[in-house]
């Protein structure tokens, strides 16, 4: 019931939500996070982005995160879709959808999965600005977001 997909093509947010929601009458809550490409980063306009990943390790790292979430909360399904390749502003980059009986667990597990994905899954962004292409640096705030889950 958990599913991890890495793809170069766009994904249909509504179709994924509908598939998850309709599959099980025990589901009382479905929380979806969608990360999309901004046209601005670190003070510069960004016109496009290329996402690279480590095939094989990416899926393993994500599966570990989902296993942890399933141990921590009572969940009824997690779906992660992450795009790689060329992206433009407004393109959805990542989707994390979590189903559970009640909203509290779905909200917490969804945030947990995206926080861990940001610091543990081997993806790298390269963005195009008026000054040329540049690799995006990892953010301290992402490490801090992940660290919160270790004490709670």
């Amino acid at each position: 019931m958990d599913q991890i997909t890495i793809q170069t093509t766009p994904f249909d947010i509504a179709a994924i939500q509908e598939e998850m929601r309709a599959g099980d009458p025990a589901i009382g809550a479905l929380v979806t996070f969608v990360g999309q490409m901004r046209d601005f980063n670190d003070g510069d306009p960004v016109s496009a982005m290329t996402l690279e990943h480590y095939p094989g390790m990416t899926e393993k790292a994500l599966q570990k995160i989902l296993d942890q979430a399933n141990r921590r909360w009572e969940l009824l399904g997690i779906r992660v879709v992450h795009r790689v390749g060329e992206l433009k502003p407004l393109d959805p980059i990542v989707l994390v959808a979590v189903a559970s009986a009640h909203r509290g667990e779905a909200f917490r597990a969804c945030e947990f999965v995206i926080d861990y994905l940001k610091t543990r899954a081997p993806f790298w962004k390269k963005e195009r600005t008026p000054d040329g292409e540049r690799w995006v640096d990892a953010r301290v705030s992402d490490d801090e977001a992940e660290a919160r889950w270790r004490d709670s």
Partner: protein
Amino acid sequence: MIRILYFARLREQLGTGAEELPASPESATPGAIIGQLKQRGGPWAEVFAGDQPVLMSVNQEVADLDTPVTDGDEVAFFPPVTGG
């Protein structure tokens, strides 16, 4: 043989994404492999000088400088991740 992979900024700096090294005491850990690569000088010495953060994995699991590496393993070097 040990399969070595490089990703993202490292791949571009080194001008290669993959290579193979013979299994030997000089490739028994990621730390030993780094020591071997640095001896090539140029971008290799620069990338692994310690000025920029370099993460590593062995057989697609997060590793450190001392993780054992044996014949047939896959070792990767890459910058901190920036997905999502």
